[in-house]
């Protein structure tokens, strides 16, 4: 087994002439797609992998320098696609991984036929004229919790802070999964995510994007999907589902699966 395959727990299932790559968001692993996969394996070849730093991967492989920015993860994705030697794929990315897909598509647009983003956001922190959903004070509490976990873990004590302790419900929602990683990795990943600002590169995207999100996702306000739609360089389409929460493919599969299948099967009409 190649190092890429082994490190990312890479799995290729199903049969078909088109390739779908499913990328999970941080704090979870490829099992978030478990409700979706059975619907795809008959018609597509489905590729599943775990992000480096996910709880299911070897923590020794997490290079703190490489993954200080989202580019590091984009390199991983490109390595996987190279390994698979497929012409182009349909990329389905959840949360931060959707942005990772976007970054990868800028350097290698030939490898992506379309990108489907679920619960994605180019920037989480609010800015002048931009509503990302998170205020600095909310994030301060999160980093304090993660920092205390890190200190505890290093000194041999028990890291006990969890997402549920946060006051801001938005932070709770998003960070619940972040605490599923080793404390040092979790802290690094949280910093990477909340410091990232992908707004500038959106105009460089040339691959068509399907933007999907829940109507009530505390971590991704609906205006964000509108922002994406307006600012992406390529053609895009937005669909807001009636689901709740940041992990709709796991919490409301009945609503989400039909929507995803629709966007996978059909392209944006260029009328």
């Amino acid at each position, binding site marked *: 087994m190649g190092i890429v395959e082994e490190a990312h727990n890479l799995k290729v299932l199903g049969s078909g002439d088109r390739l779908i790559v499913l990328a999970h968001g941080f704090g979870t692993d490829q099992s978030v797609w478990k409700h979706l996969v059975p619907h795809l394996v008959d018609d597509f070849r489905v590729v599943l992998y775990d992000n480096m730093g996910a709880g*299911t991967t070897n923590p020794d492989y997490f290079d703190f320098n490489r993954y200080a920015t989202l580019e590091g993860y984009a390199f991983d994705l490109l390595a996987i696609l190279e390994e698979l030697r497929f012409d182009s794929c349909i990329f389905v990315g959840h949360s931060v991984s959707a942005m990772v897909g976007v970054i990868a598509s800028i350097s290698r647009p030939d490898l992506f036929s379309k990108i489907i983003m679920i619960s994605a956001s180019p920037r989480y922190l609010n800015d002048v004229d931009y509503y990302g959903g998170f205020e600095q004070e909310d994030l301060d509490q999160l980093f304090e919790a993660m920092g205390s976990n890190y200190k505890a873990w290093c000194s041999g004590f028990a890291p006990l802070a969890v997402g549920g302790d946060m006051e801001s419900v938005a932070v709770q929602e998003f960070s619940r999964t972040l*605490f599923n990683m080793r404390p040092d990795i979790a802290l690094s990943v949280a910093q990477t995510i909340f410091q990232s600002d992908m707004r500038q590169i959106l105009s460089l995207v040339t691959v068509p994007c399907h933007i999907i999100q829940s109507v009530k996702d505390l971590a991704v306000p609906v205006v964000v999907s509108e922002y994406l739609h307006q600012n992406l360089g390529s053609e895009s389409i937005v669909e807001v589902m009636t689901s*709740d929460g940041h992990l709709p493919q796991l919490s409301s599969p009945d609503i989400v699966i039909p929507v995803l299948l629709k966007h996978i099967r059909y392209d944006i009409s260029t009328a």
Partner: protein
Amino acid sequence: MAVTSSDTHFLDIPDVVLTIIFSLVADTRTRNAMSLVCLKWHLLERSTRKSLTLRGNVRDLFLLPTCFRAVTDLDLSLLSPWGHPLLDSFPNPLLLAQFLRHAFPSVVSLTVYVRNPSTLHLLAPQWPDLRHIKLIRWHQRLPTLPLGIEFVALFEHCRMLSSLDVSHFHCWTEDLPPAIQAYPMLAASLSQLNILKHSSVEGFKSHELLAITASCPNLRELLATCIFDHRFVGFVSDETLLALASNCPSLSLLHLVDATSLSNVRPDLNDDGYTSEDASISRSILCDVFAGLPLLEVLVLDVCHNVRDAWPALELLNSKCPRLKSLKLGQFHGICSGVDSRPDGIALCHGLESLSIKNSADLTDNSLEAISLGCPKLSKFEVLGCKKISAKGIRKLTHVLRNTLVDVKISSCKNLNVVSLLQTMEPIRDRIERLHIDCVWKNADNSVKQTASSNGETRLKKKNKSRDNSFCSRTWSKLQHLSLWIAVGDCSGERRPCTGSLGLRYLARYPSLSRMLLDCSGVIGYGLTAPPGYPDLSLWERFFLYGIENLNLNELNYWPAQDMDVNQRSLFLPAAALLAQCGSLRKLFIHGTANEHFMMFLLRIPTLRDVQLREDYYPAPENDMCTEMRAESCRRFEDALKSINRHIPD
């Protein structure tokens, strides 16, 4: 100073006698220590070791020790990664199966996890003299398998089989009868059959039970799940029971348990304690059934549907089944009226040593008194879900039976709470060895949904009881096992666990407490998919396990709380962090899943020797998509656990 001038040393004892002495030692750690004394003892120990559980990663199977050639009872079900198909990952599985045979040539009793039929195809031919086999599978049976294929593979090669246990083996009820019928000679020599399926909620249908028992007339022990609800196809009726008794007249142990009894939910009874439907069992038929089973020693009839006015049949038990020592009845009513303190009904079975009464709606304090007078040999007594009894009745019972009772379990009885229960235990405080009580502090239960349960089975020696101050001065000198049920309330609701904890640290008063079973699987909530603003299970974990590091635990079995929507029972950060603080832990078994990052926390425990994730609940999550612990992660963790760097003090 008297000196018996013998220069005889232990080593001068003749080998034959030494061998007998060694063969009487059962404890594994003692045996391991014995084998380190000298080469002779090493050889003796190995030649007298009869029972072995293989642990270790299946990849290292080529490192199998070959010195245990005397082993007759072999358990292969706990090899790592737990629940994986045994030899499938090898290019030449037959060679390894033969190697197993070579290492353990004398095996007559085998326990093995059968993920798919290939395991049995490979292993069954290796031990054709097998007498007893226990199959285990918590994963789902592949629907594409032909009926009975696994049993056929087994019966074809192991013609001497006399005991089959599939109580933890998930298969369809239709799998067994055709296989049994296809091997009539084997069936006729089967003496023990355990089809009491914990691994699913299906019961055997009436015709299946009869087909099986008709083929196995020499059964001495039968345990089966069945269906007593007459609204279902294949329910157990009077005819079924009669036919069963006539098919297997030599039965000494019979358990017939309604399939719904095995799900962990507490029974849903109306206010009076009766189920909405009655069972289709008449008491006159029961009399005939008992008459047909004169050799009966252990009987369990856990019916889950009302059997009313059962006392005439129970009175007959005494004369028709004189050897009866152990009895458990579920949903039987009218078993003992206890009028005028004269023993009647079940109280006439004076040979009983163990009695368990479940959900008997009209059991009163008078009944309890009558039972205590009529069954003077009772050493084990259980009462569950009986709404009419009170502390007074229990107290009378413990008083009368104070010289014999050593094992008591009292659960779900509305009128009893912890304080009054502890008072009832006074007469037997000095002799009781095993105790289970529900920790209910008020008379009426005020939690909305009793979805939580937490059991702690512990080993205690002389210590004080912690919770209630008024009993601090007395000791429970013989108590070895204590089991507690604690209601926590609805964990999927908006309430968070209170800032505080379950109070595990109070158990630190028992320094001898070394083994614990913490079962939080009755707690149901949300893992990652909690709706906005709802607490998730990681908060509950922190609540349950806080303080666990204060205990000197040696061995812990932990069942995490469940997210039923996604069939996940998993460790989150607080659990991994708190468990990693248990500095004296040697063995840790988690009955659920956990990701690699969290498992690695556990390496901090210096004494940790044996850890395994065992998803032994139904349905066990299928790999690749649902379980966090992948085979490679498992291997890395186990390698790290074994690595030389870790200095294990003993």
